[in-house]
């Protein structure tokens, strides 16, 4: 637990560097999700190691697939692929596609079209029911505007899938604008309760609260759990925090990546170490 914070910072550094190196990607969404991903990949998830794939390993579905640079960072740090693979992000013939695919070691579901990954997670949870495996899915807040999400939410509540845990990265922003101005989501906790879910609302950047919410999900076996994690878009990079325009696929200019890495505690002489694309 003590090094979750440093793992999350490292996920952020790698994610923004991948986006800079590739010339495109969604930084704001990676940065809001980084602490939750660190808590999953360095805490809550029981992963199969690469040589042995225990049938009862947990699964993670990044339904908000555009945050994959942060997922790839976490998987790299957990040893699923090496540093050289990071340089393939968004490159022709590369391993690391612009959205997560099951061809990538450690990726449990192919995602990228919002709303669909959550149904896949539901199918995994139904298929693995009784096996000891648990299934986690991370959704974006804007993603909740997809009707398919509520089809899946209704079914998970109906089947009382205690082995399913959804995490909403609630950074309040989507591609074009604030959720509030695009399509209002509130009252969000009440919606999930009405769909027969166990609901936890937390600060998605507070590791104690994240840990307690995961413990609550683990202890709730008669219903699925949703963790509504209040987060800050662009968390950790001064000029991105709370600015919707850093949601979309953007190019990070040289000065911007320099500042981002500096904000994330990488001094200028160490920054070349994050030039994965060579």
């Amino acid at each position: 637990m003590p090094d979750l914070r440093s793992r999350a910072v490292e996920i952020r550094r790698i994610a923004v560097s991948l986006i800079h190196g590739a010339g495109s990607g969604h930084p704001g969404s990676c940065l809001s999700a980084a602490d939750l991903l660190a808590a999953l990949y360095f805490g809550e998830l029981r992963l199969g190691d690469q040589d042995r794939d225990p049938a009862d390993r947990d699964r993670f579905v990044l339904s908000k697939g555009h945050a994959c640079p942060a997922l790839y960072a976490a998987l790299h740090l957990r040893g699923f692929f090496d540093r050289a693979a990071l340089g393939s992000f968004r490159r022709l013939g590369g391993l690391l596609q612009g959205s997560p695919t099951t061809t990538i070691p450690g990726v449990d579901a192919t995602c990228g079209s919002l709303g669909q990954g959550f149904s896949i997670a539901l199918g995994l949870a139904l298929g693995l029911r009784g096996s000891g495996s648990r299934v986690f899915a991370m959704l974006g807040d804007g993603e909740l505007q997809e009707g398919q999400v509520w089809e899946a939410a209704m079914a998970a509540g109906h089947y009382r899938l205690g082995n399913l845990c959804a995490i909403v990265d609630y950074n309040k922003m989507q591609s074009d604008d604030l959720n509030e101005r695009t399509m209002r989501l509130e009252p969000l906790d009440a919606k999930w309760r009405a769909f027969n879910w166990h609901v936890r609302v937390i600060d998605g950047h507070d590791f104690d609260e994240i840990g307690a919410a995961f413990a609550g999900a683990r202890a709730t076996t008669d219903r699925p759990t949703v963790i509504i994690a209040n987060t800050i878009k662009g968390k950790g990079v001064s000029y991105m925090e709370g600015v919707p325009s850093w949601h979309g696929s953007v190019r990070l200019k040289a000065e911007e990546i320099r500042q981002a890495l500096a904000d994330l505690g990488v001094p200028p002489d160490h920054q070349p170490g994050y030039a994965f694309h060579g």
Partner: protein
Amino acid sequence: MVDEAQGGNAGFVPSLIGTSGETLREAFGRALTGLADRYPTLVVLDADVAGGTGTHHFRRAYPERFVQLGIAEQNMVGVAAGMALAGRLPVASTFAVFALRTIEQVRQSIAYPRLNVKLAASHPGLDAGPDGASAQALEDLAAFRAIPGMAVVSPADAIEMEKALPVILDYNGPVYLRTGRSPARRIFDESYVFELGRGRIVRDGADVTIVACGVEVARALDAADLLARDGIFARVVNMSTIKPIDEALLVACARETGALVTAEDHNVVGGLGGAVAEALARTTPAPIEFVGVRDVFGESGEPDDLAEKYGLAGPAIADAARRAIARKTGGTR
């Protein structure tokens, strides 16, 4: 879950429409149930139409392997993907017109990761009948054929359905399987062997080839009878695999008969006709006439009446064959 066979206290039981003969959906449901023991990972997914698609047979026999997702087809397709990732062999079933609303889910969640999921759709084409145009899917073959790596199969009769199903389950990849609502005439006998990707000559002839799928195979045989009265001998091919199409057989037919007609209960745009034309245009161009719904929507009516009105019946196929023959360069007729 209430079984539709369990009626109310007066003993009245609602009868299913169109199940009196050998429908492809009934054959599908019965064959699926019969294969459950052979395929222990098989699970069947439904979106509240089990009584219509034939999967109620499976539900009755294997309730623990039947997953009801309610009227939510997009989620059903995603759940099928997840269950495949969990090591199951999912067969998801709905009506063809509702399968169309899952086209992006099939593309993204099933075909792109090349998951071993089968999507079985009943009530395709004008064969859906009295429910009218909103229930008559005329675009499914074209839509699912356009997805990379997706196989598309449309059997002609109950025997072929029964023979095709285990082959489809053995095939490791996504398949769109078109069943049918209305009683389908018998084409094959029990000796029939289905091969994925292979067409089958069901009647030989040298003057023209009619390439058909689904309910149109029986109507193509009607057309061949009509043509024979005029001394025209039509070859009839059952092209139940629309993708991957049997190009070798098509090339042979083009060479040997010099002209072709395609016949499908589907829009003439992008379905079997499109697949045949694509296969022949590169290497063996020949006159092709296309029988299908002519880029319009259908209407309520009984399937055979609709087939007559919309030009899918035997006489229309025979007319198309005459047109194709007349277009042969240096044609003999």
